[in-house]
């Protein structure tokens, strides 16, 4: 049977599409309301304290930013590594990468103590700060991926797509290295201060970003009445399982290395054994639900072929990913810093004690608002730009020959 040419068309207007837009719009408004409330009253209305200074908004922001980098997987595989079956989904991959980054940055900025001073952050750079570098890496990523999308959608020789795609691929590696190094370069806290944070975050980006991509692809196709073939799901699912395994590997190396050093025994005992919520989140949600379960779902033969499995695996990876970022961000702060090795310390400022953190509704609202912004942006882009193919049935997807 002759294969049809891949046709990219704007999403048709359907009832379910509108319903999804309204729902996301509601979450976006909720996020803005949460921001306005916090900005008016100060961060006293959040769950954050002087001990846990980055809370749930940072978990969402970092998850979205890390996922943004990984959402570019499909495009990179198509144009950098030359795998033809990924070409029809490469445009969406670029659009989603930008949308997720914008969503994550919005949460990060709106959670600042002084979001009105964003212009200060954009104009004054302390180049010894990885945060300042990240401002450049994030804005540069948006520019490079926008150019990447442009050349994909233009009638330019394919060499251009490969060149710009390679630049975007290298940029995303730098971006996630920068995000991981926010923690990796923190010498003060025993839960961070490790070079492995950068590659760990890159592995996380591959996994979380692909999971979000699979769900967004499936949702947009379903909402617009288009079809995806079984092979496409299988291909993406297989890749997701590999990336989920990579995250488990780097996580294992991270903790085994720390366990070897006596000075890190305290934080490791906390995360792995005695940390209560953090221990549960680590073993049950991050490792079990977010790591082992999706891998089993994809690879075990008695499951295997249904399209629902990569979708379920993606949901599990996202749940596990949020737990992982929560354990890193909040768990790493909850464990007390050791100012006085060899002594038991106590003070009215919570020296030597595990800090409590209970996320507030406003923080959840802000975080979900960022997710809604990212999803709404990708939906709007797919509605007005020709980023999605009309058909991803197996017979329509180009082969690797």
């Amino acid at each position, binding site marked *: 049977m002759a294969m049809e040419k891949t046709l990219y068309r704007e999403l048709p207007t359907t009832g379910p599409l509108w319903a999804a837009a309204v729902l996301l719009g509601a979450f976006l408004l909720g996020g803005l309301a949460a921001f306005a409330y916090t900005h008016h009253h100060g961060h006293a209305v959040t769950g954050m304290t002087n001990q846990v200074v980055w809370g749930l908004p940072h978990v969402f922001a970092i998850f979205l930013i890390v996922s943004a980098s990984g959402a570019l997987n499909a495009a990179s595989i198509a144009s950098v590594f030359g795998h033809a079956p990924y070409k029809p989904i490469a445009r969406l991959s670029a659009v989603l990468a930008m949308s997720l980054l914008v969503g994550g940055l919005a949460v990060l900025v709106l959670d600042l103590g002084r979001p009105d001073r964003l212009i200060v952050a954009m104009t004054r*750079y302390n180049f010894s700060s990885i945060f300042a570098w990240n401002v450049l890496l994030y804005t540069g990523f948006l520019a490079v991926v926008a150019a990447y999308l442009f050349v994909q959608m233009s009638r330019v020789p394919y060499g251009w797509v490969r060149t710009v795609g390679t630049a975007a691929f290298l940029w995303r590696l730098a971006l996630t290295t920068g995000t991981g190094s926010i923690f990796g370069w923190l010498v003060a806290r025993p839960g961070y201060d490790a070079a492995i944070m950068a590659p760990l975050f890159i592995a996380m980006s591959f996994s979380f970003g692909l999971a979000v991509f699979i769900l967004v692809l499936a949702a947009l196709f379903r909402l617009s009445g288009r079809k995806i073939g079984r092979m496409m799901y299988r291909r993406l699912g297989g890749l997701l399982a590999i990336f989920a395994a990579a995250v488990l590997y780097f996580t294992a190396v991270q903790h085994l290395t720390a366990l070897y050093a006596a000075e890190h025994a305290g934080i490791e005992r906390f995360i792995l054994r005695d940390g209560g919520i953090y221990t549960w989140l680590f073993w049950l949600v991050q490792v079990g639900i977010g790591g082992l379960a999706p891998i089993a779902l994809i690879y075990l033969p008695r499951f295997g072929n249904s399209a629902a499995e990569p979708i379920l695996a993606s949901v599990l990876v996202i749940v596990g990913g949020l737990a992982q970022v929560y354990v890193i961000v909040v768990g790493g702060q909850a464990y007390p810093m050791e100012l006085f090795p060899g002594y038991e310390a106590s003070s009215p400022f*919570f020296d030597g004690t595990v*800090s409590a953190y209970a996320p507030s509704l406003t923080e959840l609202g802000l975080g979900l608002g960022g997710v809604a912004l990212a999803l709404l942006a990708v939906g709007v882009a797919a509605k007005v730009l020709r980023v999605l193919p009309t058909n991803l049935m197996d017979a329509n997807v180009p082969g690797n020959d």
Partner: protein
Amino acid sequence: MTCTQKPAAPTRRDILKSGAAMATLQLAPGVTLMAFGGSEAQAAADAGKRWGLLIDAGKCAEGCSACVTACADENGWKGKGDAERDAQWIRKVTLKNKATGRTSELPVMCQHCESPPCVDVCPTGASFKRKDGIVLVDKHICIGCRYCMMACPFKARSFVHEPVTNQKTHAPRGVGTVEGCTLCVHRIDAGRIPACVEACAATGNGAMVFGDLRDPESEISRRLAEYPSLTLRPDLDLNQGVRYAEI
């Protein structure tokens, strides 16, 4: 008189750079320096000095919190009773030696590191170190990202969680920004000693000594030369301005 004290950027800075700084410094009040941000506060500093504290835990009396109260009064950061969110520029820490059971107490505040992690990580340069070693936050360009709080190994910084009123003119505070011990820079620039040190001396304990670490004849340098002392987290090699003895 106040008019002549107001800094008029380039010419004045040139004079300061030329080394004729001291006389001008004594005149410049902390309120002007702090309110006008980093460059002005920087201009008041004398690069020939390194201000520091020596805290003798052996003399720090159990249950005494005169230094903490004095700091809160001086700089106006007294909280509302929400221990988790109230600012805490200086705190008393009780230590119990795990091996011997011996207990001691000491105050912990910004350690005014020579290589401050808070300054390294601050994206905008709001966290900065003066030439005389005092580490400060420029409240005008702090965006409230709180990365310095993540980076500080001593929990020395607080985030202002709620709008503040009745601030001291020499220690401006602002909701959504980060703050910490200034070593009472406004006092130092006026030739006085930090409020905590003064209060500690007034109790008769005399557990805190303030002075110039670069001056071998200063009391702090002489004491440091005389008996053993240490910095917190020496593994980080930050060369703090605050030293401890008899922990």
